[in-house]
């Protein structure tokens, strides 16, 4: 047995020996006071449903406005539609105006966004663990329909992805 496996029961024992949290809960009077200031479960659910319904309606209105353009204002002529109209000068003018507006809507400076890698790393590690389980099962013969080679190829691909994320992480650290 490896040293690591021998240490796991020791960690479990220490965890069970931990006392209850030093800061205990508040008393029953405080619980009742807080309960009165909060809506009951059914009311909370009703509030949540109303909130979700409002959000859905708001998203639908925004989507419609985006699709059709702002209400009360003429639609901005797109070069593709403007090209169908008569008059070359009008087309080039509209095209230019459209391009100017589009350019002015862009940010002046490019934005650099740092995205955390924790979620990606954990997901990849979980996927590798899952493939490892399948490889073990395939080698033990409990899943005869599944070959080991495709699983190993998938595992190699996942490990490669993990290496790439780690490499990107180290590059980002150096760049900071």
């Amino acid at each position, binding site marked *: 047995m490896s040293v*690591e496996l021998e*240490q*796991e029961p020791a*960690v*479990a024992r*220490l*965890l*069970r*020996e*931990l*006392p*209850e*949290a*030093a*800061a*205990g*809960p*508040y008393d*029953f009077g405080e*619980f009742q006071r*807080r*309960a009165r200031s*909060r809506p*009951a*479960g059914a009311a909370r659910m009703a509030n949540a449903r109303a909130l979700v319904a409002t959000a859905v309606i708001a998203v639908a209105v925004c989507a419609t406005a985006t699709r059709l353009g702002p209400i009360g204002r003429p639609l901005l002529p797109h070069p593709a539609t403007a090209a169908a109209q008569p008059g070359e000068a009008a087309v080039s003018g509209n095209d230019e105006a459209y391009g100017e507006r589009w350019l002015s809507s862009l940010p002046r400076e490019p934005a650099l966004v740092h995205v*955390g890698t*924790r979620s990606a790393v*954990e997901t990849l*590690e*979980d996927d*590798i*663990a*899952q493939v*490892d*389980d399948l490889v073990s099962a395939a080698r033990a013969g409990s899943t005869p329909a599944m070959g080991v080679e495709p699983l190993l190829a998938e595992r190699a691909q996942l490990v490669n992805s993990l290496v790439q994320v780690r490499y990107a992480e180290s590059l980002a650290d150096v760049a900071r």
Partner: protein
Amino acid sequence: MTRLFEIAVPEDLRVRACAGEEGARQAIYAAVAPATFSLIRRIVGHTSAAEDVFQDTMMILFERLPEFRREAPLGAWLRQIAVSRCLMYLRSPWRRVRLRLEANDTEAGLASMPVTAALPPELIDVERALAALAPTARAVLWMYEVEGYSHAEIAAAFGRSVSFSKSQLARAHLKVRTWLEPQGSRPTCLLS
């Protein structure tokens, strides 16, 4: 220490509490509140968030008390509610935003951990190791090692695979062992 799932309350007390008798409710609260809060505090990590989850859990307990079927001790039933509320909290987008803000702020986690100066040094190390773990890994470690959940039960609670539970547990063990090993580079923190 009495674990939450071991706590039982007399049936007549439960019936009186269901009937709205305040004294009975108070007695049930006194019996289960410390262990419930302790469990939630261990999984959630922050005291203020733990109080919110605890309040929700206890309100649900009293709302659903008439539905309790006595197939297990009341504490075991309450534990299911508490764990479910904790995992809902861990999955919530608000908490994820907060986690991102605190992603590299190890001191924030260490500062909010429930350490008392009376603890033996090795337990203080375990407290610090727990506080330094990612919330999901801490929840899996606590549920498996202390609460006695199986990998299949943890996977079902998180809505993930058994491999997820195993890998989270292995990762948590690795980090805790790293904390327990004597190292000069380990973060230090003064006891209040």
